[in-house]
């Protein structure tokens, strides 16, 4: 499964951190610097494993912690409708 940004979401960068607004649910979300990096890495549809390896290359972080933190971020973003899942072509 590929992860991609919901095209309906309005996003803007404020002091290096991304702010999101979902016009369908009227929910605002302020991402921290790591969340903003994940959002920027998802500019093109990306598989979760690829996303995690990209993050591991950027941050000196334990592989298990990186996976669990990324999975929890992604599941919350999916729940809030900020990200979508799609089948690879």
């Amino acid at each position, binding site marked *: 499964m590929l992860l991609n940004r919901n095209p309906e979401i*309005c*996003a*803007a*960068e*404020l*002091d290096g951190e991304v*702010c*999101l*607004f979902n*016009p*369908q*649910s*009227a*929910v*605002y979300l*302020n991402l921290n610097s790591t969340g903003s990096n994940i959002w920027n890495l998802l500019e093109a549809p990306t598989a979760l494993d690829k996303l995690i390896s990209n993050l591991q290359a950027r941050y000196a972080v334990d592989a298990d912690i990186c996976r669990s933190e990324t999975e929890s971020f992604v599941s919350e973003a999916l729940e809030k409708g900020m990200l979508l899942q799609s089948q690879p072509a």
Partner: protein
Amino acid sequence: MTPLLRWPSRLIAYCLFSLLDHGIWMLIQLLPGPKLLKVARQRPWQTWQLRLTPARQRHWRHRVAWLLRTRCRRAGWGSTCLSRSFSGRMLFDLLGVANELHLGMSKFSDGRKVPHAWLRDPETGRLYTPGLSPGAGAPLTQF
């Protein structure tokens, strides 16, 4: 220069506008966000739009702009940037005056990020309610 409104009509107009603002503030507390956004987008009150001559429309636009400026300076509890912008949008729509409701995120000096709404004239870019401070906010959407 003659004032836009004279006493006591200025005071009465301000009180009525404050009531509208406060009523909308209460609606914002009660209505779910998606429903509120839908209403702000669809603007059902436009069916009651007044047919004014351009001169009358300009005259009333200045009056409503004055009300919004004054309300923004004086408002306290029971009024938010969204309720004031929403009230302004309703009045401008009734007068047939073009307006844009903007939503964004503003950042306070202590680092807090807070959602912000403001109303703007799409033709001149003039702000009817205070917008984002330069460098301390990011616009997200408009409708």
